[in-house]
């Protein structure tokens, strides 16, 4: 715990929306999420696309939209993050690698965006630094003069990565860094992320691609229907018997067939009383229907299940 860079405790995120006739509707996206990231560690959150896990990244950086509500505590190096603290740290100590090229201003050249808003006297230094970082991640110099729409998928990915790393952060939050990339670019991204960890940075990787999580992460948190149901070491995913949650097991067992992608979006969205996996669970019992299991520590593995196999470790 003492060398935890990032600690997320019981975080829930919900949205207020208006539907037909101006009825207000509250949409819960993330429920009771807890996890931690140490220095030099890559932790992946693995969940189906469109399930709202990106919002955790936004919550950590304090950039949730105004109708979003975040409960629970997020701490950085043991210090609880308030909105003011987040604003102070973001961009400097905590950086976001966003999902897509849409996160770049379409009308501004890449270089200008990467260095951000700097004073004139510091601009030269910033440009030099930007050149170095771009070079480090294999971007040609002229890429800086391009507009975002001119970048190829792989180039855009690197631009986003190097833009985030310009300030040499301690914690990197990478939000879906691989979709739509060819295999070579995916591998490069995986290596880039691993390199960050080797440099001592903590990385929170948010993804829906199982193989990316497996190849990159030290620990993997399984995100199901707004809940983290299991956080296990990446190497344990090679052996189904070392996995605790029935959903995780079925996921891994089904791997060759579904092409290492987690795309099933059919997970209960409305709030249920019991376990979110109740409907599909092969080992459910009466208690699961009306009692929500807590996320508990079992020999270093975090698990949210009433009936998991207590013998495994």
């Amino acid at each position, binding site marked *: 715990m003492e060398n935890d860079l990032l600690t997320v405790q019981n975080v829930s995120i919900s949205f207020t929306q208006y539907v037909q006739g101006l009825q207000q509707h509250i949409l819960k996206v993330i429920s009771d999420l807890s996890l931690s990231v140490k220095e030099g560690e890559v932790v992946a959150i693995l969940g189906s696309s469109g399930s709202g896990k990106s919002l955790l990244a936004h919550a950590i950086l304090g950039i949730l939209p105004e109708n979003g509500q975040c409960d629970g505590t997020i701490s950085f190096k043991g210090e609880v993050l308030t909105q003011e603290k987040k604003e102070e740290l973001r961009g*400097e100590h905590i950086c976001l690698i966003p999902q897509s090229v849409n996160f770049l201003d379409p009308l501004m050249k890449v270089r200008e965006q990467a260095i951000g808003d700097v004073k004139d006297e510091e601009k030269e230094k910033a440009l030099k630094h930007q050149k170095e970082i771009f070079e480090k991640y294999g971007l040609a110099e002229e890429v800086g003069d391009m507009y975002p729409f001119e970048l190829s998928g792989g180039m855009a990915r690197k631009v986003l990565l190097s833009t985030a790393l310009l300030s040499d952060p301690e914690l990197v939050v990478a939000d879906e860094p691989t979709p739509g990339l060819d295999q070579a670019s995916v591998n490069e991204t995986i290596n880039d992320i691993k390199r960050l960890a080797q440099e001592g940075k903590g990385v929170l990787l948010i993804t829906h691609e199982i193989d990316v999580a497996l190849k990159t992460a030290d620990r993997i948190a399984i995100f199901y229907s707004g809940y983290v149901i299991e956080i296990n070491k990446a190497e344990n995913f090679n052996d189904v018997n070392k996995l605790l949650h029935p959903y995780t097991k079925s996921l891994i067992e089904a791997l060759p067939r579904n092409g290492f992608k987690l795309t099933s979006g059919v997970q209960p969205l409305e709030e249920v009383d019991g376990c979110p996996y109740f409907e599909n669970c092969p080992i459910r019992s009466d208690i699961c229907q009306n009692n929500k299991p807590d996320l508990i520590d079992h020999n270093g593995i975090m698990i949210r299940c009433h009936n998991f196999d207590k013998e495994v470790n």
Partner: protein
Amino acid sequence: MVIIINSQKLAKFLGYKAVRLFILLVAVAAVSFIMVEISPINPVKSYAAEMGASAQQIAALSAYWQVDVPLGEKVVSWLADLLQLNLGISLIYRIPVVNVIIQKFTASLVLMITSWIISGVVGFGLGIIAGGTRGSWIDKAIKTYCYILQCAPSFWIGLIIMLIFSVYLGWFPVGLAVPVGTMASDVTFWDWLIRLILPAFTLSIVGIASIALYTRDRLVNILNSDYFIFARARGENHWSIIIRHGIRNVLLPAITLQFMSFSELFGGAVLVEQIFSYPGIGQATVAAGLRSDVPLLLGIVLISTIFVFCGNTIADILYKYVDPRMKGDENE
């Protein structure tokens, strides 16, 4: 912002627009001619009344207006005259319509462009401030101001401004006693400038509302955009993002909108010129309408159509050719 214009494509586009304008003008000319023809206005009678013409002159006029000729033929011959830029003689000003329009339209253009620029700049600024302070009392104040302005008839705002600045403060003369028939050349430059201030002020105030509200909405949308979120995540502060990214992304659409507002601008000018007796095309429009100066009225319809068309075409060009992203679209 880098402006990338593909000149070949632009030339093709402008050629296409020119053809469109020609077709449009023919249609507008024909339709407006027919509208006046079927109206209760009798151009010969109004000519006679205005000029006290003799029986001989009336006969000549009847021949000019082809009283006994069927409508279809009249339209064709009017269009043929039009192609030679022969718009007839204005009965109020007693000189060729083309000359009246050139003089009056120049005066109005000064008025319209002045207020167009002022309202554009002020409106854009207010919109950025309102959007940037979204939800605060400043935003609410600007929004309320714009809503009220949008709902106030522009001629009434003109009246109130005249009431304040001319009647109470006495800074400007009330409705200078120059009859409608006087040509702009008879008025000294100073007189003219004095007369320009209040109409331009009124027209600016009226024009601010729509551009400010549009800019605000656009900026608020950008505040929720992904790139704004990422800029925040990189630690840039709120106003710095608005200046660096917000203005950059709102400016072009806002200018485009401003160019598309020529129609309202012209309408506003008609009302405002009437109130402040500004000797421009608007005043001429009202005079021509009320005193049945058919040739002048038809000429004004055509020139205003060209004016509005120019605004819309410039807006089109801005939209299609100035955005750097369009360079990418050519490959598609």
